[in-house]
């Protein structure tokens, strides 16, 4: 102990330097907005990089499954091309605006972080503000249905509030009879392969394996596949019932997603904002 004390007092200049310099740095980082933002940003950058690198391994393991899904998608797209080519051009009417630009455009993105075990799950993807993303854009997975909404964007990354989140509502309909309800997850069942549809009017007759698609009333385009009915629900003397579905989308193996950019999203939002003001 005495030796330690002698050591410290002999090199007191150095120890004082450490103490005072640390105090100075702490003052700098805590009290200046710029330095603080840089510190936290670089930390986030590090975290993002770590996740990206970890994901390389996972990506490799899942290559087979991804291959299959890509092949399936290829096939689907090819069929679509064929069907378009075979349409009689004189009668064709395409839903496009006057400049010939389609209303929805799809931007592929890679999942770099995913969770399915929490009550509220988020996904991180490798596209961000620089690629034109903004909060609220809908996200789907290739051929297998809905994923969620963009929650927050940074310059090159974005987080998605996945369907497996208590704040996520998506308007869906039953394909065969257009009964509209809202898709939620986690109502008494936290299985990531199942979801519930609330507010289906009681008078619709549903059967197992009915296909569920998006209705087009929320920001998703109409007709995106969601799942099949697995439990037609019990009507307890009320006007609406809740049914359970099997999701097409397997959230545990999500690798690539498509972000949907709606050309008229802003316009629609503004128009509908006016409506609520009038009420």
């Amino acid at each position: 102990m005495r030796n330690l004390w002698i050591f410290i007092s002999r090199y007191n200049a150095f120890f004082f330097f450490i103490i005072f310099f640390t105090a100075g740095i702490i003052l700098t980082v805590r009290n200046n907005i710029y330095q603080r933002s840089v510190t936290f940003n670089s930390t986030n950058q590090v975290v993002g990089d770590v996740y990206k690198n970890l994901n390389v391994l996972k990506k490799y393991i899942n290559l087979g499954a991804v291959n299959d899904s890509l092949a399936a998608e290829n096939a689907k797209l090819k069929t679509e091309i064929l069907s378009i080519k075979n349409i009689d051009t004189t009668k064709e009417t395409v839903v496009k605006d006057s400049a010939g630009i389609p209303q929805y455009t799809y931007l592929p993105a890679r999942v770099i972080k995913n969770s399915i075990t929490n009550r509220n799950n988020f996904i991180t993807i490798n596209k961000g503000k620089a690629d034109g993303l903004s909060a609220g854009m809908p996200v789907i997975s290739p051929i297998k249905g809905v994923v969620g909404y963009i929650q927050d964007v940074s310059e090159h990354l974005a987080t998605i509030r996945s369907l497996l989140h208590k704040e996520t509502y998506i308007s869906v309909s039953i394909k065969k009879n257009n009964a509209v309800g809202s898709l939620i997850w986690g109502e008494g069942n936290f299985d990531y392969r199942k979801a519930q549809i609330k507010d289906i009017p009681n008078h619709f007759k549903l059967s197992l394996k009915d296909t569920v698609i998006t209705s087009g009333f929320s920001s998703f385009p109409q007709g995106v596949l969601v799942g099949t009915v697995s439990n037609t629900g019990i009507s307890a003397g009320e006007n609406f019932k809740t049914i359970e579905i099997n999701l097409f989308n397997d959230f545990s193996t999500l690798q690539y997603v498509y972000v949907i950019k709606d050309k008229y999203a802003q316009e629609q939002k503004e128009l509908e904002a006016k409506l609520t003001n009038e009420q």
Partner: protein
Amino acid sequence: MNSRLIIANIIRWLILLLFQILILRNMSFYNMATPFVYVLFLLLLPFGIPNILLYLIAFGTGLTLDSFYDTLGVHTSACVALAFVRILFISVTVRDGSDEPEPTLGNMGFKWFLLYAVLCIFSHHITLFFLETFRLTEINYTLLRCALSSILTLFVVILIEFVFYNRKVR
């Protein structure tokens, strides 16, 4: 003798800080060379000063500068770094029984003072500019600014020392 030194240092502190805050704060050459002449005060503190007191004075001076520059902590860290280099340099080059009260140009000679000032000013400026920029991507620009500012500060410091040059008659 001792009280004369204390009063001289207090007056020096006031004048140099006022000079820095009122005049030099608005001065910069192409945003590349900015003089920080107030470090002269820390350079000229007497030899016999205890380390802890030197650090406290450096910390306080830096804090005062920071409150006028709105960069809390940047000048403080830089001044503490300068104090550390000053202690090291003096412990290496000056024997304990030095009869000079304070390290001025007149007392210590031009060569000693130049090396002393270069090392102290450069350590101060490099801490200052790196904390201010706070990233390594602009390292070339930061180093250039640091070097040019150091040269300017050194120039002004030596100039002031020559103006108040009074060689002791031995």
